[in-house]
Structure formats: C-alpha cells, structure tokens
C-alpha cells in the first residue's frame, strides 16, 4: 500500500488532469494497487481521502450519472480554474511587504502563514519592531465575503436571530464591528463581531444597498461616550485636577477647555450621550475629577458612588 501522502497526491493529479469525470472504480483502476480491493474498504479509504483534500481546500466536483447503465454512479473531477490561485500577480517587493504586514499584525496565525506561502512568501518572523495586535473572530471571513459579494447574512446576536444587509466591518479600540441594515429593526445597526453567536449564513443579494458615501469609519463613534448619540450631543462639564489636566487636554483637545484655573486645574466639556461610558471615564480619575453639571448627570455619579460605598 502506498504512503498516504503519495496516494493523495496521485489522486489530486488524476482528478486535475482527467478530461472526463471519473467514478471510484475508474479511479482505483488508474491508481493501481493504491486503494484496497474490497468494495467497502475501498469506499472508506476514498471517502477519507476526499475529505482530506476538501479539508485543505481542494474543490472536488461531483456529479451523479443519469440515464445510462451507470445511472446512479457518482463521478468526480477537479476544475483547474477553481483549484488554482490566479489573478494576483504580485511583484516580489509586494509579497515581501505583505509578509512584513502579516508578521506585524497576525504573527501567530496558522491560516495567515498558509496564505503567505500560497502567495509566495516565507515563514513569518516574530518580534516586529512596530506591530498591531489584530484580534480574531470566527465570523469575520464569512462577513467579509458577504460584504464584498453583496449578500445578506443571518446570525444570532443577543439572543435574537438577525437578518442584516452587511455594509462593512471596522476594527476600532480592539474590537471588530459590523455595520449594516438590520431588516428586523428596519434601521442601520452596529454589532460587535466577537459577540455573534454561531455561524454566519450568507443568503440572497442585499436589498438595502450601502449608501454611496458610507464609511464604517464614520458609522462607529471613536469615542464610546458618543455611542447612541442622536442629533444634539449632550455634554457635561467636568473639573479636572492639576495633576491630570495636561493629559486630559491632550486627549480632548484645547477647544473643549471651558476654564483654566490658577491652581492648574481645568474645566472641560465632555460628551455624555452614553452615560455609562461617560461615568466610567470620569471615575477613572478617582478623586481627581468632579462632574460640575448638568445637575442630573452630577446626581447620577453621586448615586453610583453611594451604591458602592
């Protein structure tokens, strides 16, 4: 019996080169001595090989014969057009640049390494001097394909089955977001992709197309204190102690400074449309920040602290 890798390679070559689809009997006849003679053992070995090839991404086509003495028989082949990587034509410096990019962003990814070999790159170095940690989420490849292909998707999110026309995905603040039109809600929605439960199933073409000027960059607020903000943004005034004032002005920008006090502290305007995010931001300063107003926001922070103490 041949080595398994040898048999798999021969089977692959045969299915790629054959001019007509082949039945298992024909395959076994061609690959003399490589498959068992007994029908059950032969079928079992072939099914395992077929699964192994499909597992590594080989598209094996099959058809069921009709109308002849072989009716009901399954025949197999591989379409070279669908098998081969085509149309990329990267120059060597472009391949190298993508390899550096992968090493800087996805150094431990087995699929990333596999992709790199397919486009002609080598082993990914670790320890890039400038790097970004790009997180994973199982749903991302399917969502990207759906966005590019203009297909609507269905998935589970917060215990609800969603039907969404996907417009784009965005990585921001360490999380991947999907933005699209939610048919159940009849409106645009944003989802944290790592919170999608189960598989993403792509289906029919989208019916609510992405607006011409749409950019996920604008659709997901980069300041969590702004998430959920509609129309006029609510703002609070916050007094920041001298010890943190420089850092806060750097974070918010000079135009948000309302008052600079002689003791070095500053009063700043901060969006508080998302009260949870706002409260979390303010309390991060512990006793070095105080909400001055509006009164209801100040009262909310007091109530929050009372609930702890």
């Amino acid at each position, binding site marked *: 019996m041949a080595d*398994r*890798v*040898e048999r798999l*390679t021969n089977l692959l*070559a045969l299915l790629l080169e054959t001019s007509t689809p082949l039945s298992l009997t024909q395959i076994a006849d061609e690959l*003399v001595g490589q498959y068992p003679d007994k029908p059950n053992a032969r079928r079992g070995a072939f099914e395992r090989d077929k699964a192994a090839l499909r597992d*590594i991404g080989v598209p094996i086509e099959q058809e069921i014969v009709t109308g002849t003495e072989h009716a009901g028989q399954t025949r197999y082949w591989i379409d070279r057009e669908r098998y*081969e*990587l*085509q149309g*990329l034509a*990267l*120059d060597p*410096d*472009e391949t190298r*640049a993508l390899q550096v*990019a*992968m090493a*800087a*962003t*996805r150094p431990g990814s087995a*699929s990333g390494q*596999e992709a790199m*070999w*397919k*486009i002609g790159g080598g*082993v990914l170095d670790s320890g890039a*001097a*400038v*790097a*970004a*940690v*790009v*997180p994973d989420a199982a749903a*991302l490849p399917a969502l*990207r394909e759906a966005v*590019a*292909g203009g297909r609507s998707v269905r998935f589970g999110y917060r215990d609800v089955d969603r039907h969404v026309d996907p*417009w*784009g*995905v965005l*990585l*921001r*603040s*360490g999380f991947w977001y999907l933005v699209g039109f939610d048919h159940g809600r009849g409106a645009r929605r944003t989802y944290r992709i790592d919170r999608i439960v189960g598989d993403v199933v792509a289906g029919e073409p989208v019916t609510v197309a992405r607006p011409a000027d*749409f950019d*996920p*960059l604008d659709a997901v607020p*980069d300041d969590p204190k702004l998430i959920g903000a509609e129309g006029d943004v609510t703002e609070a005034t916050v007094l920041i102690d001298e*010890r*943190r004032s420089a*850092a806060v002005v750097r*974070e918010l920008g000079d135009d948000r400074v309302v008052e600079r006090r002689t003791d070095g502290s500053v009063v700043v305007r901060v969006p508080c449309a998302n009260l949870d995010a706002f409260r979390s931001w303010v*309390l*991060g300063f*512990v006793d070095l920040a105080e909400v001055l107003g509006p009164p209801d926001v100040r009262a909310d922070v007091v109530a929050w*602290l009372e*609930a*702890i*103490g």
Partner: protein
Amino acid sequence: MSRRGPRGAEDRLRRLLVMLPWLMERGEVPVAEAAAHFGLSEHEVARDLELAAMCGLPPFVDEMIDVFIDDGMIWVGVPRLFTRPLRLNSVEAWELLAAGRAAMQLPGADPDGPLGRGLAKLAAALGEDDTGGVRVDLERPDVADRLATAIDAAERLRIAYWSASRDEVGERTIVPRQLFTDRGEWYVSADDDRSGEVRTFRLDRIESVEGTGEVGVAGAGPLPTPGEWFTDADIPRVTVRLAPSARWIVERYPSDEVGEPDVDGWVEARLPVASRRWFVRTMLRLGPGAQIVEPDDLADEVRAVARDVLGRYRS
C-alpha cells in the same frame, strides 16, 4: 517555526502543494533555503520531495513530478501538474486583507509603496471595492510616529511619564525598541535607564518626549509579546462577581478564570491585581455592576475610596 510531533498526511500534502509551485518557478534551490522558507527541517524537505518524485499520472512512467535532490540542491525539470498554488480559502483571504489593511495604519506605511500596491491587487482579486468594506482604525497618536523613528535610529529619548500605579509624573530616559497597539491602547517597550530593564509604557501616559541627541545601545532584555499579558503567579488575586454591563473588564484585562453566567447573566471571575490603585479605580468605574467576593480588605478599600470621592461632591 518549530514543530512538535510527527506531521500528519494533510499537513504534509498542504505544504507540498505550496512548495512545488515555488520550486517550479525557481528551477533550482538549495535544500537549506527551501527548508527555511517553509519552516521545515532539511530532512523533512528531502523526504517529502523524494515522495513527490514518485507521484504523477497513470501509468506512472513519464508524467511524473520532475524533482530531484543532488548535493544539497533541489532541481526541478519540466514544471508540470502542480505549477500553481491552491487558491486562497475564505479564512486565508481574510487574513491577508486584514493584516494588510491594519499594517497600512502603522507608522511609516506608504499607500504608494509596495504594501499599498500589493494590497490593492489583493483587494481587486478578492472582489473588494475601495469604498471601505473592511476598515481598520488604530487611533494612532502623533507620538507613535516619533517613537517609531526613534526605534529605527536607536535614539535615546527623555520622557515625562505618568505612572498609574504611583499616580505621579516622573522623568526618565529610554531607548525605545518596540512599538505596538493592542485593544485600543498604544505601548512602547524600551530599555529604561532608571531600572536597567525593559519596561513597557502606555503612549497616552507619556506627557512629553524629547531627543537627547544620544544613540542608545539596544539591550538584550526580552521584549514582551504584543497581545500576551504578562501575569505573574506572585501577583495577588481577587474574586469578583460581574454583571453583564461589567463583563468588559475580563475582555480588556487578564483573568485567571471566568465562570459560566448565572440566570441573571452575572459571572464570577478571578483576576490578578498588579496594582491596587488600578483595581480600586476599575471597581469605581464598574460600580454596582461588580461585587468583590474576596479578599475583604480590597472590598473595604474600594468602599473607602468611593466615600472619599463622594466627599468631594458633598463639600
């Protein structure tokens, strides 16, 4: 890339299907070079190629994979059968696109350079348009570019840095070695002159940066691996119960274990507490959404600090 245990048939075939087209394009390649390129030992390369040389088309006489090894060199005769690699599957396509788009947001990336051009070809081949189906925003602060330049030049910098654990701004000189962003924050790992060790600094806590005009000698101290949290077994632990609204803390910060949600969605989690000051601040932010199960002294401290802050509002 190191590898443990025997390689399975699928793994060997997968590697062969990328190695053969790569070799066929080149014609002749030193075994050592192929081994390094594909993360295999020279023995593994030789064994798999010798096996490939026995493969081909029935009747297995002349339509064979034309490859042989002689004197440390791999030679490919007539390229046939596996002249092109397998297409990218959806996960691999995603990996390339996401990595390229993210790297374009790092300091020094040039849209007209090789990465930009390669990424444009890739996007076209994958059916992406350029209206932003996949976007990456790394929220890069200006100081990141300054630090990247310093890394290139091994420049020694003087920085003013706010230490969260001590709550004070101190001046130190550093030789930056690695710049990275993770979970929305930027960090620089550097040889720190004060401690004589590698220290990692958060960019948003760097109050100022100035050059010293000196070139530093990069130390040999190991750098942290971006994305892996360094938690020490000696660091004290706390057990907390977290409401769904507070669950983000275990997505952002390291935890030893997180239990299953109860009927109300609360989970119990065990966390390392590297800095009590950090922990108390985090508990104020989580408020009623978090309850400290143990130790009691930390719970007391959180309550005391909450009362202190309240004092500000009542005075």
